[in-house]
């Protein structure tokens, strides 16, 4: 099959020190300074967290949204290895790298937020574990997934360092890690939605439903494709490479199909529970609900036709709309639609935002260093000859 003749990944090369890496480095340094304050004086010293809003952007952005944005690797690997769409193979490594960075940092980011972080290992220790807890499931799954992803990604390092035997051995069992790497995100991405269920009526009915796991799983898959669209466009322009429109066009179609399923489930659930009346009230909740819905519907207008899907600008915008929709769904459920009673409010402090920005900078920095030095992105001339 000709579709399997894909471009070989090679390092992009070039200097590691440039304007982009310098800015990222400064942002990372600021983050470290804030984190030192946090560990010396407590969460209250740098965050606006309170007992009405015990979770802020470090949980909702860095972990809940950060891990969903890191679903590109999962979504593309599922396409290539489960649905046997080998033609998408060149997208696997770059997507997997972004996922690897995103998830590893989400896992590390949790530590910053834990009030009694020195006990963090309890969550993986059988005598402490509470299998009834949704968070226990999420934590175990994410930890396992980070390990699995490093294994999935390790051929990149083995290639670079010329460890052919090790790569051959790994290749024989890689299919199992790929299967595991597909299952684990399904489990924890759905559970990230289930986390809201135990909060009961504190969550606005627009975002509190027993189908939360399905909603979060479907959006995680869609966001995965959206992020790939976004990243392919950004990486192409930053490295002055050709955009893989021939791959992104059909992938965007699959994304729209999954998105359509999501919208049917989402709207069907709202209608069946009679929760739509909450979307009609003049409130902030109703407003952000409609923003969320419009963002998830926008891709149909942007890239509904095959012709439109060949336009890189439209693909990019559709990717951005999906990512923003994913942000809104999660922020709406975890923060805006969360109400513990009168008198409580939360808006992140500058320091909290700088840590979240610093985490993002760490991701970008890691992505640049690895793609410049390791074989991740497909070789340009082969890709152009396609």
């Amino acid at each position: 099959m000709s579709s399997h003749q894909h471009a070989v990944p090679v390092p992009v090369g070039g200097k590691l020190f440039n304007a982009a890496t310098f800015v990222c480095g400064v942002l990372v340094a600021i983050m470290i300074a804030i984190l030192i304050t946090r560990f010396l004086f407590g969460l209250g010293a740098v965050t606006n967290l309170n007992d009405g809003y015990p979770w802020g952007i470090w949980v909702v952005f860095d972990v809940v949204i950060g891990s969903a944005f890191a679903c590109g690797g999962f979504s593309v690997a599922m396409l290539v290895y489960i649905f046997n769409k080998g033609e998408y193979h060149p997208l696997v490594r770059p997507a997997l790298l972004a996922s690897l960075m995103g998830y590893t940092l989400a896992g590390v980011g949790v530590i910053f937020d834990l009030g009694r972080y020195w006990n963090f290992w309890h969550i993986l220790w059988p005598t402490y574990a509470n299998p009834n807890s949704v968070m226990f499931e999420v934590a175990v799954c994410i930890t396992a997934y980070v390990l699995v992803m490093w294994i999935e990604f390790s051929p990149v390092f083995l290639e670079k360092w010329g460890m052919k035997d090790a790569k051959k051995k790994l290749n024989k069992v890689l299919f199992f890690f790929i299967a595991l790497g597909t299952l684990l995100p399904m489990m924890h991405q759905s559970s990230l939605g289930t986390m809201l269920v135990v909060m009961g009526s504190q969550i606005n009915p627009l975002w509190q439903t027993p189908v939360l796991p399905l909603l979060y799983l479907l959006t995680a898959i869609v966001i995965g494709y959206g992020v790939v669209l976004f990243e392919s466009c950004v990486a192409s322009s930053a490295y002055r490479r050709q955009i893989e429109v021939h791959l992104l066009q059909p992938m965007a179609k699959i994304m729209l199909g999954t998105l359509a399923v999501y919208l049917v489930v989402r709207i069907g659930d709202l209608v069946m529970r009679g929760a739509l009346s909450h979307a009609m009230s003049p409130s902030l909740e109703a407003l952000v609900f409609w923003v969320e819905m419009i963002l998830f519907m926008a891709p149909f207008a942007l890239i509904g036709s095959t012709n439109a899907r060949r336009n890189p600008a439209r693909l990019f915008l559709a990717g951005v709309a999906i990512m923003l929709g994913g942000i809104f769904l999660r922020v709406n459920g975890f923060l805006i639609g969360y109400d513990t009673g009168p008198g409580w409010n939360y808006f992140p402090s500058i320091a909290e935002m700088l840590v979240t920005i610093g985490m993002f900078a760490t991701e970008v920095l890691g992505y640049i260093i690895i793609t410049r030095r390791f074989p991740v992105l497909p070789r340009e001339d082969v890709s152009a000859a396609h």
Partner: protein
Amino acid sequence: MTTRRNFLRGCLAGGAAAAAAVVPETACARDTLQRPPEGLGLLYDATLCVGCQACVAACKQVNENPPEFTAMEKLWDTPLDTSGHTFNLIKMYRNGTMETKDAEQNGFSFMKTSCMHCADPSCVSACPVTAMIKDPVTGVVAYDADACIGCRYCVAACPFGIPKYQYDSPTGKIGKCELCRHRHEDGFYSACAEVCPTGATLFGRTEDLLAEAKRRLALKAGDWTNVPRGRLPAKGEKPEDAAKWKGLLDQSYEVRVGNYLQHVYGETEYGGTQVLKLSAVNFEKVGMPNLPPKSSAATSETIQHTLYGGLIMPIAVLAGLTFVARRNVVADDETPKGGK
């Protein structure tokens, strides 16, 4: 052809996981848990409360909590809500001219804020490391700081906003009422009930407290009745059992029956709580949420057990995925690559 067949197979494997998420509550359904028969609790009667805050001071003392200042002069403890350092508080409801006690219009009332010791606590279900434990006998919802990772999922999960975190400390703990379980073995019951001068907060077995609450609701408002103070003896309590607890046995006195709403708060909410409340003012207006008889812990755990019970579903899906991935990855590996 192969591609198409594999695509369909992949759909099946992926679909199984997605379908699993919407499986209706069947075999794995986890019912709302009920109160243990010997469960201990409190009965708070807002019509008897005079708002003296003696219970707040006593709670601070026995739990060795520091005062919290909200006034300009830092003279005495003035918390505005429960916190990581304040486990019990009497809050005030005010309306209009505030002329009449226990009146919704132009009146005022009090409400105790402290742990309800739910039959099916959200915090216990949420905690990933079993740091929140419901005692199987007394039903007290206890906290173990040595197990706690400080994730604050309990804070987010509790519908009463009870577990609170100490944000002001680099080694902050969760703070909440544990019904003075650390004093029980010495024969002391909950300090708030012990010091309450009017019997507005009463300690005892929830079963007995519920009977007492219902007795009061059956009386005619304005009539005289005898109410106990401190500890309510269990129904048919033997002298040796009574001797376990310190304090005067009968501290009852005569009061006028309050103008109660016909609702024992905590009898059925979330499957019932071990702390019960009586009020003359609408419970939602005095800060007690309107909760269904089914607990959210039951809903959450039903979803989790349906998906992950015995790890059957994940293992089945993994087997399907492994089978499909094996075929596809091998095919992928056999293709000649540029370097080979």
